[in-house]
C-alpha cells in the first residue's frame, strides 16, 4: 500500500463551502492533489476524515484491533455531531454527520488512492508491455446500474465484441464523460461498481485492439503525473482563492492558469 499511501499523503486539505458541482469545475490535476469534502468548511472535521482514510490505507491497529471502516464511520459520526455539523437531515449525502456521507468520503478517497497505485504499476514498464490494454468491467453489482456503454461511446470509445476495451495509452480513460474524476483509474464515479481488467498483449492483438508490432509511444503514468498546468478560469474566485492560499508556494496562478511548481 506504499504507493497508495504516498499518493494520498501528497494531498492538501481544502476546507471549503464548495459543493460537489463547484469541485467538478476544477481540473482533475487540482482535485487529485486536494483532500476535500463537499461543503465541509470545518478544518478539524476534514482533518479527522483524512486521518481515518490514511489509517484505513495503512491497516493500522488500535488497542490491538485492526482499525476498520465501521469503526471509522462510528468515530467520525460522533465527532461530526460533537462539532455541531449534523444538519438534522438524517442519512443523506448533504449531511456531513450522516453514515451514508461519511462512508462515501472514506470509500471514494481510499479507492482513489488504491486505484492510483494500481494504475502506476500496471501502466508502465514491463507491465504495460505484457498488458497494454484494459477493459471497463462491472466488479460489483449496484442497486441502480448506470449505462456505462452509453458513457463509453459518449467519450469516443468503440465497442469490441460488445466489450469496453482500449489501450492504456488511450485518452478515453481520462475523459470526464467516462470518468467523472478525470483520472485514468478507478473509481469512475461515486459509488460506482465498475472496475478495470487488464488485457494481455496476446488478447489485445487477437481482438484487433493493437497490431503485433505496436509499441507504447508514451508512458501513461509519466503523462498523468506531468499534468502540472490547469485552466482555472471558470472556477469560482472564492474557491480558487482558498486553493491558492492553502497550496501556498506549491502553485502559481498566472492569467487563469494554475501551475504546480513542486
Amino acid at each position, binding site marked *: 500500500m506504499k504507493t497508495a499511501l504516498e499518493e494520498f499523503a501528497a494531498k492538501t486539505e481544502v476546507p471549503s463551502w464548495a459543493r460537489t458541482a463547484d469541485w467538478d469545475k476544477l481540473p482533475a490535476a487540482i482535485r487529485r492533489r486536494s483532500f476535500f469534502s463537499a461543503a465541509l468548511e470545518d478544518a478539524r472535521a476534514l482533518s479527522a476524515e483524512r486521518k481515518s482514510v490514511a489509517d484505513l490505507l495503512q491497516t493500522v491497529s488500535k488497542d490491538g484491533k485492526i482499525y476498520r471502516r465501521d469503526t471509522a464511520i462510528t468515530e467520525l459520526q460522533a465527532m461530526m455531531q460533537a462539532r455541531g455539523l449534523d444538519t438534522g437531515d438524517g442519512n443523506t449525502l448533504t449531511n456531513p454527520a450522516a453514515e451514508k456521507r461519511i462512508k462515501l468520503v472514506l*470509500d471514494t478517497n*481510499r479507492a482513489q*488512492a488504491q486505484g492510483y497505485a494500481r494504475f502506476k504499476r*500496471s501502466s508502465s514498464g514491463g*507491465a504495460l*508491455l505484457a498488458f497494454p490494454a484494459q477493459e471497463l468491467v462491472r466488479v460489483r453489482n449496484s442497486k441502480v446500474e448506470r449505462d456505462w456503454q452509453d458513457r463509453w461511446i459518449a467519450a469516443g470509445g468503440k465497442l469490441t465484441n460488445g466489450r469496453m476495451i482500449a489501450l492504456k495509452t488511450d485518452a478515453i480513460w481520462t475523459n470526464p464523460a467516462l470518468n467523472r474524476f478525470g483520472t485514468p483509474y478507478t473509481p469512475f464515479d461515486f459509488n460506482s461498481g465498475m472496475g478495470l481488467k487488464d488485457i*494481455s498483449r496476446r488478447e489485445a492483438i487477437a481482438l484487433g485492439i493493437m497490431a503485433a508490432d505496436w509499441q507504447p509511444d508514451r508512458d501513461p503514468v509519466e503523462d498523468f503525473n506531468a499534468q502540472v498546468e490547469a485552466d482555472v478560469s471558470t472556477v469560482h474566485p472564492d474557491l480558487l482563492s482558498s486553493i491558492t492560499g492553502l497550496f501556498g508556494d506549491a502553485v502559481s496562478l498566472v492569467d487563469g492558469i494554475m501551475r504546480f511548481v513542486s
Partner: protein
Amino acid sequence: MSVNVTVSIPPEISIELAKLREVRKAVVEGASMGVEAALRDHFQYLQARPRADGLKAVGFWSGTDGNSVAEQIGDPRLSGDSALIEIDSPQLRHKIDGGEIKASDFGHPYLTIPATDAAAAAPQGARSFETHIQWVPHPDGGVRPALVAGPKGNDGVTLFWLVRHVRHLPMPEALPPQSGLDSAARDAALDVIDAILSQPGEAA
C-alpha cells in the same frame, strides 16, 4: 608464480549489458502483472459465487470501495528474477488459515452474524440500526439471542444473530493454485519478450 590477466567489458558491451538488465526487469514486471491479473480474476470468481448463508454478496473478495481483498494487492517487490506480491488483508489470511474468532478477543460479549441482506451490507454493522436483544427462533431450530429491529415481541425484524465465537475451516481455495499463477507469470513474461523482440531494430 601466477600471472593475472585482467578482463574488462568494453564500454560498448557494457551498454548492451545495461539494456539486458532493463529487459530482465521488464520481464519480471510483466510476470508480476500476470500474477496480479490472475489473482484479481480469482477473487472476482470467488465474489461471483453464492454466499454460504444465502445473503447478497457485499464485495468481500472484489469490489470498488477500497475494502475488498482484491483492492489490497500491493506493489510487487522485485528481486532478480523473482518478485513478491503482498496482499495486505488480515481477512484473507484468516480465510486461508481458518480458526476461531471469539467475541471476547474484541472486548465484546457477542459477535454479530448478519441475518438479512441489509444487515450484511450495513456500513457500521449492528451500529447502523436501532435494535434490542431478544431470543428468537432460529431457522436451524431452537431459540437464540439476536439483535432485533422494531417492536419487541413477534413483530420485530431479526437483523443479527448473536454468538460468543465462530470457527472457520481453512479455505485453501482462497488463493488460486500455484500452477495457475506460474502459468500466468510465464504467459506474461513471454508477452514482454515478444513485445521487446518486435521493437524496430531488435532481432525477430
